[in-house]
């Protein structure tokens, strides 16, 4: 049985089912609120939901039973003297050390918890970056949406921020280095493309078996890094569009990545066809993986946190949700797909619990 946590514009849905079959909803929480992201920490079994109430602002909630009562976490919040307010939390991510979690949000902010997510504190190293006053938001805000930990080493973490590129720490978040050599922001004026910090990262994941390797979906571009995220190489050749938001990797294969290309103009699936693309050679070539997905008059948007996987290898499950409220699943690493849930509100995130 697979459990999917589906965040939507109108609440959190917990779907359960067997890979390859239809999934059924088992609970709905935060009915009137935007659930930006929800996940389960496999170490503690605790569920987390990032919820933005349109009136009362962003909060992190946690529970041991998604069908039961949720408890509001203390924090996260910005320093009063900063003059800034927290807009939303984009991601909650378990760290490498016990009881430690990260949460990333807007405005380009990282929080940490050392008590399994009950209380959260600002990471001052990233917050106090001298360049922060010049950081520019993307269309979705100044969002820290990707957190790539380094397996077995809690000191080394990379984060992706739209639109301030990627940042790396090797001392557990005390100091951070900005590095993004090789990324080509074609939306920027030609004379600043080599130097601008205004890099709109859409998603970033680390290959756990080869942790110096990262894959990135950029705002116009798909990239791979083999040196921990300092230098990047374009691997978009062969895709119908290099624009998109989410990205998934097979943890058993450091040469693997999956993207869902969208047209850059309307940010919908190109040509009315829904296709997932897979590489198994680190981006040298891409294979279309759309068998069972709508191939006519299908204009779907898929947001950056709305794609996830379960397991690894040939039996890896893949799941993504659309802005039109449908969830698609594959039980065989993208070889075949089916609709597993539909008629939901706009899907903001999909995570396998």
């Amino acid at each position, binding site marked *: 049985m697979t459990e999917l946590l589906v965040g939507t514009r*109108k609440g959190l849905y917990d779907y359960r089912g067997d890979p390859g079959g239809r999934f059924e909803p088992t609970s709905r929480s935060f009915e009137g609120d935007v659930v930006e992201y929800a996940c389960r920490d496999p170490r503690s079994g605790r569920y987390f939901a990032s919820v933005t109430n*349109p*009136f*009362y602002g962003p909060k992190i909630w946690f529970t041991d039973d998604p069908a039961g009562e949720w408890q509001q976490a203390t924090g996260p*919040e910005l320093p*009063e003297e900063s003059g800034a*307010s*927290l807009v939303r939390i984009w991601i909650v991510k378990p760290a490498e050390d016990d009881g430690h979690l990260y949460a990333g949000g807007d405005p380009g902010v990282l929080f940490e918890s050392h008590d399994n997510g009950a209380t959260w504190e600002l990471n001052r190293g990233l917050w106090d970056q001298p360049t922060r006053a010049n950081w520019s938001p993307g269309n979705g805000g100044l969002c820290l949406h990707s957190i790539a930990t380094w397996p077995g080493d809690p000191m080394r973490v990379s984060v992706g921020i739209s639109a301030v590129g990627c940042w790396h720490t090797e001392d557990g978040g005390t100091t951070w280095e900005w590095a993004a050599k090789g990324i080509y922001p074609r939306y920027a004026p030609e004379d600043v493309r080599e130097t601008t910090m205004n890099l709109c990262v859409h998603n970033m994941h680390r290959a756990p078996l080869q942790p110096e390797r990262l894959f990135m979906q950029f705002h116009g571009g798909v990239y791979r890094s083999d040196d921990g995220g300092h230098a990047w190489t374009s691997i978009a050749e062969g895709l119908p569009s290099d624009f998109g938001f989410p990205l998934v990797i097979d943890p058993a294969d450091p040469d693997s990545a999956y993207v869902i290309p969208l047209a850059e103009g309307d940010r919908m699936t190109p040509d009315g066809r829904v296709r997932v693309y897979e590489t198994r050679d680190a981006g040298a070539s891409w294979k279309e993986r759309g068998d069972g997905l709508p191939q006519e008059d299908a204009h779907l948007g898929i947001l950056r946190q709305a794609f996830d996987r379960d397991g690894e290898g040939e039996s890896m499950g893949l799941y993504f949700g659309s802005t039109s409220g449908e969830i698609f699943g594959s039980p065989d690493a993208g070889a075949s797909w089916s609709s597993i849930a539909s008629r939901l509100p706009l899907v903001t995130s999909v995570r396998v619990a």
Partner: protein
Amino acid sequence: MAVVMLRAPLKDLAGGESEQRVEGGSVLEVLRELERRHPKVRGWILDEQGGVRRHVNVFVNGEMTREDTPIDPQDRMHVLPSITGGDVA
């Protein structure tokens, strides 16, 4: 002490009482005192900067107010979400 009227979910965060008697000489002071008495309210009405959240309205004796509006002990304060509708969602 002024009377602060709360609706769900704020009422639930403030111990289930929709009518709270709270001290303070201004709207901000009353809301800060409400947060002090009921820590779960913290972050729901006021943001990190001490401003009333953009989509929350505070009325005193039927008039919409700002954070620095003076409060008298006989005043009645309503804390309400903005009227919304017609967004994409």
